[in-house]
């Protein structure tokens, strides 16, 4: 072992380290990988990291940050040390994600039709029907194969004991999958010696699988359906991913202005005139999809799209109105929802969650604020949350006021000490917290891309992995 090797001065302390895994039975692939990391000088890793960063910028593998009038292309910082998931772990994760997606789709179908789960009192009626994500226009509508959530990103964390827990479901337009594939390409470009000879599951066929699912949901009777990817345009912060997915699926990347509804059908404006569109994979929020049905001021959508969809002449993925299922307050009921529809226990447990909407939850949250994480239900991206143990007395007081003013807007969870992975930092290789977002694609059936996006909180001690909050990402290796 080299004294200047990547793992030489690495000490995760009492945190669960995904690389070292003390106490686990030996795994030959992990042993070999650790051996290679021990023999790899930190300086070499640093050099390759610099190469990778330059390469990402040149390739424009970026997201766009807007401040004032300027748009800056930023790369999502990429840490070269991979995150490894063993074959057994993946089996559990995959089964858990598939189970969750099935339950989400059954739940959505139910709340937009018979509402049995509400009538049976399993989930409070008000929580669903009064939810901002509940879309009345969806009532009675049957999407093909009963699939509402065609692409789902499930945020999963690992606690101190190494248990996988679901932190959040993303059932609207989850992003990040392009980085999964691009991170793998980058590993192969600059660090292929680390992977040589190891059997790591491929991530290359995401576009193929997605296209297949999009074809499966196309209106009946169409043999070679025209699929398009609908993007808000080149100034959207996730535009790179839209490009990536359109390219990987081999379909046109369109904007609202390229589509038109005529005679109850959706058409795209091509050099040959109007040609029919059968499936729209949209990366536009519900509100912007159709100015006739939702926000009349939306310039990004397609007037009449909802009507065409409801008449079954076009398929839209993900369906409108899925926001009611990935809501943070509904999340608390997911284990019960899974059991209600599938008569199974959740394979992946939730983080213990209290809704401040009920008096008991609020009282508990207020009493234990200093040890809890409190999140606003309607926010995403890590905004507006309180991490009790890291907050000052003044911040706690201030938050207490906000909580009392609008308790229904908050949920609270115990602070989970996320698992860590060795990560290259300015001062050397250090333990940094990570999470995992696997991507599940559902047409007729559900398929999960092996691995998913591993996000890493680059600031020491930070538990917030969001890219908008200084997070980076890692390549995720699922061992075969």
């Amino acid at each position, binding site marked *: 072992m080299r004294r200047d090797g990547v793992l030489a001065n690495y000490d995760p302390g009492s945190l669960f380290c995904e690389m070292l895994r003390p106490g686990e039975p030996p795994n030959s692939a992990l042993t070999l990988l650790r051996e290679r990391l021990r023999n790899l000088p930190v300086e070499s890793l640093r050099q390759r990291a610099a190469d990778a960063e330059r390469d990402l910028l040149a390739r424009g593998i970026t997201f766009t940050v807007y401040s004032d009038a300027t748009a800056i292309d930023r790369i999502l910082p990429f840490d070269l040390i991979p995150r490894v998931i063993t074959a057994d772990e993946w089996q559990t994760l995959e089964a858990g994600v598939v189970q969750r997606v099935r339950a989400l789709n059954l739940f959505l179908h139910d709340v937009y039709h018979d509402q049995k789960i509400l009538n049976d009192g399993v989930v409070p009626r008000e929580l669903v029907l009064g939810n901002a994500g509940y879309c009345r226009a969806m009532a009675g509508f049957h999407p093909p194969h009963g699939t509402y959530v065609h692409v789902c990103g499930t945020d999963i964390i690992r606690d101190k004991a190494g248990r996988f827990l679901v932190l959040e479901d993303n059932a609207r337009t989850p992003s990040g999958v392009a980085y999964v594939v691009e991170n793998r390409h980058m590993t192969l470009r600059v660090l292929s010696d680390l992977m040589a000879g190891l059997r790591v599951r491929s991530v290359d066929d995401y576009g193929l699988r997605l296209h297949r699912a999009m074809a499966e949901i196309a209106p009946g009777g169409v043999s070679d359906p025209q699929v398009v990817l609908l993007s808000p345009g080149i100034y959207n912060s996730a*535009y790179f991913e839209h490009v990536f997915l359109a390219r990987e699926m081999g379909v046109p990347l369109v904007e609202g202005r*390229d589509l038109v509804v005529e005679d109850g059908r959706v058409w795209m404006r*091509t*050099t040959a005139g109007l040609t029919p569109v059968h499936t729209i994979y949209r990366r536009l929020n519900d509100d912007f999809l159709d100015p006739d049905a939702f926000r009349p001021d939306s310039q990004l959508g397609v007037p009449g799209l909802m009507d065409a969809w409801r008449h079954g002449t076009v398929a839209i993925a993900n369906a409108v109105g899925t926001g009611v299922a990935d809501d943070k307050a509904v999340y608390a009921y997911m284990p019960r929802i899974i059991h209600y529809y599938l008569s199974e226990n959740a394979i992946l447990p939730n983080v213990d969650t209290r809704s401040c909407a009920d008096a008991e939850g609020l009282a508990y949250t207020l009493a234990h604020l200093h040890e809890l994480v409190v999140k606003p239900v309607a926010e995403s991206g890590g905004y507006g949350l309180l991490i009790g143990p890291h907050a000052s007395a003044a911040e706690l007081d201030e938050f207490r006021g906000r909580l009392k003013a609008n308790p229904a807007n908050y949920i609270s969870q115990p602070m989970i000490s996320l698992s860590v992975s060795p990560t290259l930092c300015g001062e050397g290789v250090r333990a940094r917290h990570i999470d995992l977002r696997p991507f599940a694609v559902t047409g007729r059936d559900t398929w999960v891309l092996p691995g998913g996006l591993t996000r890493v909180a680059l600031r020491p001690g930070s538990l917030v992995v969001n890219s908008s909050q200084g997070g980076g990402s890692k390549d995720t290796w699922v061992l075969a």
Partner: protein
Amino acid sequence: MSEAISTNKHLIARHAGSALWLARYMERIENLARLIDVTKTFARDAEGGRNWLSLLRINGDAAAFFEKHAAPEATRVAEFYLLDAENPTSVQSAIRSAKDNARTLRALISTEMWLQINVFQGRISALSAIDIAAEALSGVCAMLKEGVQAHTGLTEGTFYRDQCWHFYMIGRHLERADQITRLIDTKFDALMPTAVADAVIDAGEWNELLRAAAGYHAYRREYPHGYVAREVAGFLLLNAAFPRSAALSLAQLDWHLTTLRSRYHLRGCAQALERLDHLRTMLASQTVDDILGRGLSPFLDWVQTEVAALHDDIVTQLCGG
């Protein structure tokens, strides 16, 4: 056995327009770099100011320039074209527009093309006053020319030749046809105001003109005896082998439009093809003497107007306006 390319794959009209514009903006950058380079090389004498002024006139920029600057000095003109992001005809504006169009087309162009434009744009936007000082100017022009030529080479080698490529090539040939007529018009106006077509004029001036059009060596090979105004005009306008002649650009344009109509059944080509047919007939049916006899400048103005009208036909009929 060869595999036919699928002709039932549709191209979004807006993307066709972006491909056309991407090519036009990239051509403009090379063209501008070429013009600045030769103007700088040949503008060292007392006539320097006149040469820089003629560069402004080729691009129709004299008025806009004098709103900002007092005299057409080398540094001011270079600044106007190389650094001024507010000037819509500067390389800064051209590369920004090229990149926006490439960004729109990113799922259709090759990864190599995108990467090169992205890096090239970074290099251009980093240019500063030091780079356009007299001693550095040639280096910058070389960098710009090489950047566009790298782009052109990558396009040749990596761009899949379906509909989108045809629209890209249409943009390139429209731009070349436009640029060459502007160049001839401005230079001939300055070089032979009295239209003495057979006059043998100062070799340096012709040298500059032909180098600006990247046609110097080809011209020497074709006409080794010297420079005759009518031969230079004929070469730049009608030569069937010179890659930037008006006649060859229009012939290529014809091939791309015809292919789009026959292979992809794009009915929207009809109007442009009709106009192009007339334009090409007007060029082919006249000798350079005929043209000079009736007046070069009015003829070039007409060609330019028709090239602009062709662009409009193509954009409105095929690219969704």
